[in-house]
């Protein structure tokens, strides 16, 4: 089994990807366009969140605080726009400022996280769990203390991001519904996939990140400032997570709800794991997770289908566990394969040597 997976890893990979793409295409044709659109919307926080997660993972830091950073982003984006005493005729603040502020706030939290982890040397996991706990409570605390509202922070002055329609593409039948008619952050997230890919594989900084994540000591020995690279990566990761959070508050509902990320940060982490920390697979995996979420809501609405939504949403999680096992099997398999090849080759050399010494005869004792 192990060897088999290791030997055929390439075909397996290609087969799996093709199967996934076919499944995606079939679903796009079968499901109504509204579900496709909503699944792309659902996938946006996963795309940005998983980029944040993989950037940190690639720099050698498992970032479990994505959830908290997303929540902070969602909160900051809303409070920047919140003007309860704004007269109705005045124009509210442009929501893009909210997105920017969310990115900055996430970046600051990411920086603090990096400093606490790398300089003060707090245990990574404890730090992340404590930060998540703190942000989850602090957002609600300030919502009540500062704005005197319970549960939901909403106001006419908080306007959602406008929908962008792409002139030519929107008229094409299927492509139009899939690619046109989303807000700014959705397109930004697609752009960010390309940007992060380019940064990671085509720049010096990206090479340094990957080197640090691969082997810290080796990177240090060739003169890379490991701490600096990790701080940069974590700050960038925080910014992405902050923007992902702002999508939840400004891109969908134009309001902030208590604990509105609801575990999406953890799912984003899972997405990054599924994609083995590579940006482009992370994009498609996010689509898959977003699809599961929107299909979950869809089957709940449609009377004819009796498929429980929670099971639909559970499916990608189980798939991730399966992928995790497969990746581990592959690694273990190639190890076994390598060992066996080595043993064979070495055994052959040993035999040759033996033959050379004994002149072809086997050593029998005389």
């Amino acid at each position, binding site marked *: 089994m192990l060897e088999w997976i290791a030997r055929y890893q390439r075909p397996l990979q290609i087969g799996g990807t093709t199967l996934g793409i076919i499944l995606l295409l079939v679903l796009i044709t079968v499901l109504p366009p509204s579900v496709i659109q909503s699944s792309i919307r659902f996938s946006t926080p996963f795309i940005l969140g998983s980029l944040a997660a993989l950037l940190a993972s690639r720099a050698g830091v*498992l970032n*479990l605080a994505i959830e908290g950073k997303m929540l902070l982003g969602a909160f900051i984006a809303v409070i920047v726009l919140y003007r309860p005493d704004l007269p109705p005729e005045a124009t509210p603040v442009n929501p893009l400022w909210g997105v920017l502020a969310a990115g900055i706030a996430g970046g600051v939290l990411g920086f603090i996280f990096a400093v*606490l982890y790398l300089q*003060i*040397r*707090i*245990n990574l*996991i*404890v*730090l992340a*769990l*404590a*930060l998540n*706990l*703190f942000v*989850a*409570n*602090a957002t*609600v*605390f300030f919502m*009540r*203390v500062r704005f005197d509202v319970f549960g939901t922070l909403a106001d006419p002055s908080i306007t959602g991001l406008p929908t962008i329609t792409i002139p030519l593409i929107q008229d094409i039948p299927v492509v139009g519904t899939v690619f046109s008619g989303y807000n700014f952050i959705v397109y930004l997230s697609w752009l960010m996939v390309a940007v992060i890919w380019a940064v990671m594989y085509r720049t010096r900084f990206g090479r340094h990140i990957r080197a640090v994540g691969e082997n810290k000591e080796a990177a240090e020995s060739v003169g890379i400032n490991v701490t600096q690279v990790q701080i940069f990566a974590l700050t960038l990761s925080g910014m992405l997570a902050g923007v992902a959070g702002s999508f939840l508050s400004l891109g969908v509902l134009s309001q902030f709800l208590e604990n509105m990320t609801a*575990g999406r940060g*953890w*799912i984003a*982490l*899972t997405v990054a*794991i599924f994609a083995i920390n590579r940006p482009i697979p992370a994009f498609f995996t996010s689509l898959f997770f977003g699809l599961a979420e929107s299909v979950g809501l869809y089957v709940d609405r449609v009377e004819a289908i009796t498929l*429980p939504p*929670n*099971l639909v*949403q*559970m499916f990608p*999680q*189980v798939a*991730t*566990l399966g992928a*995790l*096992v497969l990746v*581990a*099997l592959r*690694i*273990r398999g190639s190890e076994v394969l390598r060992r066996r090849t080595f043993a064979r080759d070495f055994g052959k050399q040993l035999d040759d040597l033996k033959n050379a010494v004994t002149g072809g005869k086997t050593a029998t004792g005389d």
Partner: protein
Amino acid sequence: MKRLQGALENVSIPILATLLGLLVGSIFVGAAGVQPIEAYTRLFCEGFGSTDCDSFSDLIIVDIEDEDTGEIVRYFAPFYGDKGHSLGLGLERATPLILTALAATVAFKAGMFSIGMDGQFALGAVVAAFLGYWLPQQVYGVFGIEDPDTAGRVLFWAMRLTIPIIIMALAAFVGAWYSWIAGYLKVKLNVNELISTIILNAIAVQFVTYLLNGPLRADMNNVARTERIDDTAWLIPFNRTFLSDVNWFNGARLGIGLFIALLAGVLLWYYMWRSTRGYEQRMTQGSKLFARFGGISTDRAILRAMLISGALSGLAGSIQILGVERRMVDGFVLSGTGFDGVLIAVLARESIVAIYFIALLYSGLQLGSINLQFGDIPRQLGGMIIALIILFTAMESYFRELITRVRVRLMPPASPSTPQENPAGGD
């Protein structure tokens, strides 16, 4: 002497961290426009004091005027609760936390940073919620009893004694094997246990939510919930039975569950620190390779630790259902008891006695901040303070380093390791 110093340090660091956490938390209290001291008095009185506690000293000693004689009587505060005491409620909340914290400790002590307690807790709870009404029904069915009230006394007591035990055992079993998955993946395939437990948590939460909204849903109540468990499966709180006239409980559903949790801690201590298998597990945490050279099967040790850890979390879930909630309501799985357990285990730094106290502190802070909400401060203050305390506790090594550095600067040690001005050399 050295031992005393060590013990003192171990006690003083959490206390210092708590004080620092409260100090930083007071900034937020001040931002809310409330006197920090006043707010903290309320927080601690609501969390740890009796009903008429209104200063910090009332947490330890209360002076009560006797109504008949007019005499002033001194009481040790935790035992005084004529009008109710918060400690009862605190202990009720602390029970599952102790168990999940123990679960986390077992896993950590075998070198597995498993945070899967949340999922195991949810699974254990759902098992208890289902069996709690289903199992008694089956028993009644076998004996052909239509109405449970007409059941004979012998049968009733036989069921009352066995059914909770069976349910708790099954819940622990389910939790154990769910936790085993992460251990197996680690041992066989070297899958990071942190990642696999995160995913397993998500799967468990979704699955339990599905069960709750689907097959186990009892009625068309607004919030999905299961049927209430049968009386024979109920771990009856003490104040509903033989201690019904003790006001101290303040309505706390405190029962045999707390004693199970305490006993679990004692047994675990014996297992971890006084038995060969526990030693093997601790060795695995210390150094895997060294343990292996010593002839210890580290794989088995890890799997055993994960099984015990999962069993404890599952048990926690079942006790919460059987003893406190009596039915599972939507949102139960999001209570985060498992994560709280991880944090408590970290705060307690893997000491079992510390877990008892910190779990109580943790639940008391939560409880106190819930009641603070009636004032001007949101209950989220409790969570923020807990997070700060955790951060400060985790900074421990940094603080120690800082102290050493300052000490070295003030009194440079005259040790041989310091380079000397002119190297002593006879040649």
